[in-house]
């Protein structure tokens, strides 16, 4: 363990002073999680098992669909479903309601856990560190269906190599190195395709 005793020090300036390009945190408006979700998540904090049951009924199909898409195995998908909801039960405060919908957050957590399971690796990101910002309101099933249509449209508009790179990275958890090896494309090209693919999805909701 590193132990550091701090004592009075002659004033010395750091070499790294203010980075003029550093911008203040932008406070773009975020859709608030619908109050029923928020109330249920608050209920989890006091151990309300009924609140957990309601959240499960509301979002288990989302979580299961994502896990099944990644893993392709119903038993393994069910295990991830259990793990994700147990984590929500144990750490409800990990979800930041100010930054987007619970459905989106659960979808990201589920996809990451499913990829960890697929790749047989230990989770590297704690759920408390998964902060995300989603513009469209995705609380209701109808909202999510409309959003899914838009995403499928945006994917259809991408070039085949870009769509393929994004899907290999997202649904198979392949690294950019693995994708580059498989496709024979340069590493930088793969990285850029993944990033621009994600941004294309964002833009689909800005028009």
């Amino acid at each position: 363990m590193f132990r550091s005793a701090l004592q009075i020090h002659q004033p010395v300036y750091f070499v790294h002073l203010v980075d003029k390009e550093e911008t203040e945190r932008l406070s773009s408006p975020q859709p608030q999680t619908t109050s029923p979700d928020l109330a249920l998540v608050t209920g989890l904090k006091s151990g309300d098992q009924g609140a957990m049951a309601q959240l499960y009924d509301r979002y288990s199909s989302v979580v299961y669909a994502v896990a099944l898409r990644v893993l392709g195995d119903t038993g393994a998908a069910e295990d991830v479903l259990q793990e994700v909801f147990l984590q929500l039960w144990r750490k409800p405060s990990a979800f930041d309601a100010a930054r987007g919908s619970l459905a989106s957050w659960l979808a990201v957590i589920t996809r990451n856990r499913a990829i960890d399971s697929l790749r047989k690796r230990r989770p590297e990101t704690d759920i408390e560190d998964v902060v995300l910002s989603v513009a469209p309101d995705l609380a209701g099933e109808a909202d999510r269906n409309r959003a899914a249509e838009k995403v499928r449209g945006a994917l259809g508009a991408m070039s085949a190599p870009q769509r393929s790179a994004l899907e290999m990275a997202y649904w198979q958890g392949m690294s950019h190195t693995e994708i580059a090896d498989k496709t024979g494309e340069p590493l930088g090209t793969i990285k850029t395709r993944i990033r621009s693919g994600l941004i294309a999805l964002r833009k689909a909701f800005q028009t």
Partner: protein
Amino acid sequence: MTEHEQYADDLALYALDALHGEDRVRLDAHLAACSACRLELEQLRGDAALLALSTTGPHPPQRARKRLLDAIAKDQESRGPKIVPTTPRRSWWGVLGWAATAAVIVFALSLWKENAALKSSLSAANSESARNARELEDLRRIAAPIIAPEAQHITLVSTKTPPQPQGKAFYLRNRNSLVFLANNMPSLPPQKAYELWLIPTTGAPIPAGLFKPDAHGSASIVNPPLPAGVAAKSFAITVENESGSPVPTSPILMMGAGE
């Protein structure tokens, strides 16, 4: 190419949880100091969520619901009523027995993290959580005389030496845990706070928490958000605005390297 552009593609990989090793550590360090990149990361994660939500499939089997509800009932039974965590009271942190206090807290935090990871494994949940609960109870008993609000804390110093400001940082890099305790700190002007900095072996100082001393000049920081796995060359303290600063803007007042 600006620094932000340099990290743009890696941010997308990070958002997909697909950036590992040194690249991840380097980006973590940058994210700790760059609010624009943190915002972009949040948005890229949001974009990724849209991709996840575009998939549809069958509903989970009915047994999965019962399995979950049984598991949470059992979980609650084994852990007792949930208690909403509260911020530790600064006044708890006296100056006597710093090393013992910090060691106990760092160990407890580490154990808590391990406990959380272990509990995520369904197969091992019963035996492991019971063992860890016993260990946590032992730790609470050990720490009680140090952190109990009613405990007396007495500092013994040389009668000829006026008390000097002191800080002690305990940092576990591999567990990303930091406990910092300060004593005899001068009071601050309004709207100002002390800011602790982790000085990495390479790169810019990383914010490691803000603090204001209490009436006795004592303060503490427990487990501030830090990028994972950063090697610390030293720690330092500056005075900043009370909202904090991503980079030091005033002279170092106190500094110490690892022992």
